[in-house]
């Protein structure tokens, strides 16, 4: 079958979708009597105009890389993991247990174990929905949604009981050992003579996120397992015929996906909060869906999309100060529109663009 060139599919169509999403968002801003160009200016200035802004942008982007990769890995096996939110929440418990288990003398010692703890708990929370999908045919979308709520309840229960700090009324743990404090962007860059804002929360988790992106790329396109995952996603029947174990692929893919979502708590719980609080995921699990769609489930695209969404989140906070009439939930509207246009309404743009290309090719021939 004739199709349009690959660059059009990978770059042109998403770009048109993005422009459409921002145009509709601009109409919403116009409708509430504000100037959309001013809004864009303040959002870019707020997110990139200072090292503080950049620090926050990178911090949010780190979260979105993790959750975006989590959604993307599952997408490749044609599994829709909508449970990143819950997996990340539960992974916080794993990270906190590790961090509170010892009086860690140095972060370099604590970090690998925190990664294992967070990854294991995140993966565990993805395991049951995965097993139910593979063995019992329960729809993974529904079970992961349910597990988001069950995870939130579990976290709330533990933070009000077993893990609760005796020193405060709030549902939170005691602070993690000070020795295990992860270096922030300021602390990493200062010895190199680069001045970076001290209060910005970006920390070395960003490098972990980049490493995860590279690993995911390597896994998907350079290993046997990755090939099996993609083959399974392309055609379950063909994959089975080729001897790929469907149950194994479904479960392994979801374990990887859950562990990736769990890395979010390295950035937020270990890196920024340095204690476990209740609402630390803050919707990042859902933003991961938008990031994965925007980035076409490719790690490189995901890093770019995560940076864009990081800018949106940070820019949205700053926007509120500059233009008080626009609430920061405008960011949610933009995210929704991006999901809608790049995800659900993709064919609306894809088909006409393809027809255009085919017609041109025919005329040439």
């Amino acid at each position: 079958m004739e199709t349009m060139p690959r660059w059009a599919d990978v770059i042109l169509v998403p770009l048109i979708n993005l422009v459409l999403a921002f145009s509709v968002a601009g109409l919403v801003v116009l409708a509430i009597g504000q100037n959309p160009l001013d809004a864009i200016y303040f959002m870019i200035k707020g997110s990139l105009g200072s090292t503080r802004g950049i620090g926050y942008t990178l911090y949010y982007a780190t979260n979105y890389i993790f959750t975006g990769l989590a959604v993307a890995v599952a997408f490749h096996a044609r599994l829709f993991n909508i449970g990143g939110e819950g997996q990340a929440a539960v992974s916080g418990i794993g990270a906190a247990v590790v961090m509170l288990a010892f009086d860690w003398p140095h972060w370099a010692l604590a970090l690998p174990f925190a990664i294992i703890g967070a990854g294991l708990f995140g993966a565990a929370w993805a395991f049951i929905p995965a097993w139910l999908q593979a063995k019992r045919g329960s729809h993974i979308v529904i079970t992961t949604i349910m597990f988001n709520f069950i995870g939130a309840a579990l976290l709330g229960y533990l933070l009000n009981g077993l893990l609760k700090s005796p020193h405060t009324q709030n549902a939170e743990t005691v602070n993690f050992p000070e020795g295990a404090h992860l270096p922030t962007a300021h602390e990493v860059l200062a010895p190199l003579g680069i001045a970076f804002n001290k209060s910005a929360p970006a920390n070395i988790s960003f490098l972990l996120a980049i490493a995860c992106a590279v690993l995911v790329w390597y896994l998907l396109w350079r290993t046997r397992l990755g090939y099996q995952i993609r083959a399974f996603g392309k055609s379950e029947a063909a994959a089975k015929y080729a001897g790929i174990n469907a149950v194994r692929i479904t479960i392994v893919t979801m374990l990887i996906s859950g562990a990736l979502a769990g890395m979010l708590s390295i950035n937020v719980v270990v890196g920024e909060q340095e204690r476990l609080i209740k609402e630390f995921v803050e919707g990042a699990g859902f933003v991961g869906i938008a990031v994965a769609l925007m980035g076409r489930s490719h790690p490189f695209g995901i890093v770019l999309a995560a940076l864009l969404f990081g800018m949106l989140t940070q820019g949205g906070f700053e926007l509120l100060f500059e233009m008080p009439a626009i609430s920061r939930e405008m960011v949610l509207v933009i995210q929704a529109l991006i999901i809608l246009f790049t995800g659900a309404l993709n064919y609306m743009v894809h088909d006409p663009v393809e027809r255009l290309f085919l017609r041109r090719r025919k005329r040439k021939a």
Partner: protein
Amino acid sequence: MDIADAFLQLVLTMDMTIRLSTVLILACLAGLFSERAGIFDIGLEGKMLFAAFVSAVVAFESGNAWVGVLAGIGASVCFSLIHGLASITYRGNQLISGVAINFLASGMTIVIGHAIYSKGGQTPTLSGAARFHEITLPFAEALRDVPVLGPIWSDMLSGHKPIVYIAFLVVPLTWWILYRTRFGLRLRAVGENPASVDTAGVSVIRYRYAAVLICGVLCGIAGAYLSTSQAAGFGREMTAGRGFIALAALIFSKWRPLYALMACLLFGLLEAISNLYPNIDVFGLVQIPVQFTQALPYILTVVILAGFVGKAVPPKAGGEAYVKER
């Protein structure tokens, strides 16, 4: 505690259950129409939220609660049409479209609310005719002193807002439409085997749009109930996951209207219990934490989905866009 006291507690709990189940029933039946026609809808939450917001605003500005409900329905139907456009016309992923709708509602309600009232997304408190008031059923006062039946009639069944009674009437109506009309038969067929319906010369697209629109209307009423009946105005994220509980109830009832009523009442009861008795002591032995009661609907749904207690099989053609054979 003697028996009379216990009975009164029971009546009170059931009264609250009825109030809390109403939203779930309407949203669950909304999802039922949509999913029975083969369109998965995880955007029930978003449609309800948007409807709750719009009906609160319009009820406040017009001073009439019923006008508010109509506006809420209109708002919810708009979102339904987006879902229909994405999942029926443009063959997009129905789940992703649902996620987008939930996000859109979370964002739009606050952005618009903040722009109009500058109260962080909240709408002004509704009073007088802008809000619904309790309906007293006939003889409610006269029968109050009759033992057992008196409190059940006067305290439990009487004294609810109009939409509560509407919701309970929609259940048999849904059953009748689905199982006793040609429309219902075709609607179910569209969700099970669209190709056969198409062969019979019936438009799959048109039936799916009809289902999605009905879904929008019911979600609209559910949302309007939240902001004009259960509460007196709109508050940030006021649906609080009820759209997903309704979805859970839909699976729990295996996509059947009368069972849906039962499931919604059960989940409403769980919510009432967690409101009235946060931490339950079981004979002084174990304490059931409130988080467990709150998570129970989701846990039960996973158990049902797992097929350990009867299998929940969704409509066969659910989640797939229908592409005509050429």
